[in-house]
């Protein structure tokens, strides 16, 4: 080996010891923000929040973020466009219900995992065509899965334990002996599951798996030439993404809806999740949260504003309409102006604040 190679190994500091980018937090600022945020969420919010906040805002935002996270892993990181996320949510919800009600003594969380695993299995199957089909055409494959799952859940009574309409009511939420059916209980359950899965997603994305996904997304021929197993990488993306959506479905069904039928998992919801990650930022974990929050909170806020200021002059139907137009415009706006969504805008904003004393605006 020549001098050029050996000089690169210049000292003990180079080898083996922590690479700066692999530390958990990118600096003390982020560490404080994350730990502080978690403390706030787990400790302060239960005291500050009321039932309305838990059930109408926090729980659905958290669960939708989880679904968005799943879709982001598949579409944002691995570049495989999918409109089937609602179907995977549905599989997770129904299978979790089936396992929980048919296997007595089954821990609730394990049922959730079972549901999510079932969704992951179907996800792998859905991903098989990605070997030969790519880009826009892949939409058709996930669309097929979406419709097929909708049809299966509606037509086969097995899933809903014999109910003709497919309507099911979930059993009480009991984890480790404690009843979590109250809004606060459901909030803490949701928060815990989402936190764990987000940390997991963070690790996946920072490691070799995340890199392979992004390589396949950016240029799959080059990835193959480097030795990356492209099909297996894509299938893993489908599996993990569907697992996340399945878990989100179980949470949506158990902790949010309580009662659901196949119509909760229709194509519109898939679009909703897709919009959430477009607005929030594809290929960004925090974007999934921002997008979900935006998607759910904005209409609520609009309704409140309309009720308060336009009392009676504008009816619900018109508001729905304007919401629709508004969303359409937002989607187009983000695609045109800032494809990296809200998360990018937030990043830029934080950057500006950091350098504020030194900037001349």
């Amino acid at each position: 080996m020549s001098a050029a190679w050996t000089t690169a190994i210049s000292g003990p500091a180079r080898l083996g010891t922590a690479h700066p980018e692999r530390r958990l937090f990118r600096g003390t600022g982020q560490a404080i923000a994350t730990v502080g945020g978690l403390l706030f969420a787990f400790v302060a919010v239960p005291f500050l929040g009321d039932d309305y906040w838990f059930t109408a805002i926090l729980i659905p935002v958290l669960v939708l973020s989880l679904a968005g996270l799943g879709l982001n892993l598949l579409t944002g990181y691995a570049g495989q466009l999918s409109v089937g996320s609602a179907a995977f949510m549905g599989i997770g919800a129904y299978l979790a219900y089936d396992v929980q009600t048919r296997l007595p003594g089954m821990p609730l969380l394990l049922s959730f995992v079972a549901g999510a695993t079932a969704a992951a299995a179907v996800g792998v199957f859905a991903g098989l065509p990605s070997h030969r089909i790519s880009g826009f055409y892949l939409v058709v494959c996930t669309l097929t899965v979406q419709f097929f799952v909708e049809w299966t859940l509606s037509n086969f009574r097995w899933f809903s334990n014999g109910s003709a309409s497919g309507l099911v009511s979930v059993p009480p939420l009991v984890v480790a002996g404690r009843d979590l059916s109250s809004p606060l209980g459901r909030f803490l359950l949701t928060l815990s599951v989402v936190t764990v899965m987000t940390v997991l997603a963070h690790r996946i994305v920072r490691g070799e798996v995340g890199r392979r996904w992004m390589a396949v997304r950016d240029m799959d021929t080059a990835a193959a030439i480097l030795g990356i197993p492209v099909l297996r990488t894509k299938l893993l993306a489908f599996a993990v993404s569907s697992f996340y959506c399945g878990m989100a479905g179980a949470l949506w069904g158990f902790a949010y809806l309580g009662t659901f039928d196949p119509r909760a998992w229709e194509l519109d919801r898939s679009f909703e999740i897709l919009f959430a990650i477009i607005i929030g930022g594809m290929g960004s974990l925090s974007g999934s949260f921002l997008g979900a929050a935006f998607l759910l909170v904005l209409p609520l806020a609009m309704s409140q504003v309309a009720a308060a200021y336009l009392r009676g002059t504008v009816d619900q139907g018109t508001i729905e309409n304007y919401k629709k137009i508004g969303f359409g415009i937002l989607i187009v706006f983000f695609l045109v102006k800032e494809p990296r969504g809200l998360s990018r805008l937030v990043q830029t904003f934080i950057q500006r604040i950091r350098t504020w004393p030194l900037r001349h605006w």
Partner: protein
Amino acid sequence: MSLLVVDRISLSFNAVKALTDVGFDVARHEICALVGPNGAGKSSLLNVLCGVYRPERGRVVFDGEVRPFMRPREAAREGIGRTFQSLAIFKGMTVLENVLTGRNLAFTSTWFELALGVGRARREESAQRDEAERVLEFLDLQRYRHAVASTLAYGLQKRVDLARALASRPKLLLLDEPMAGMTADEKREMSRFVLAVNRDYGTTVLLIEHDMSVVMNLSDHVVVLDYGRKVGDGPPDAVRSDPEVLRAYLGTKRRVA
């Protein structure tokens, strides 16, 4: 023994014959230049060598073993690396991440371990990062390690392409117009790197290049293609004065009335 023997390779796309009966040897540790007018089939040949295209006829003998058809992944495992004419680096990833993808074959952990980043995967990640750092230092790219690839200047992106191909320590490095679009200074620098790769690491290089001065300075061996056929094969000086090669590049003296 030659590292690479190209044996009567033929390839066509629908009605267009990209390569016809092309055959030559590349000796170990040499720098071989593949030249010829545009459309002569040079990139197609590289694509055959790294498994992207399947030839209709002919075979490739690599490192002593006959390879009728290699898929890209197998070619990578055998030790063939490639850069691309139309920049194919991963635009959304940083320079370091790009180079790390070149190390993917070194990971032996299961998907599960890799996803969670535990145990063996953690150690491998560290080790591969060290390797990637070495490559970055070798090509003078450390400053840019956290820059997102799409934000870099063209010449730097080309270097990242080279770093990524180099990361897997290939036996044979296929360079597809590594100097395209560069200034004279950048070309000198890139030539320096290519020479360093060849001398310090012993990598055999097969490169496509249009700039004749670069070809003359760098290569030990030149192969000339024209319309998918080989029209010249030998040391640079011999090929330069070969009448058939001149005809391919400059045309004949006959005038069209």
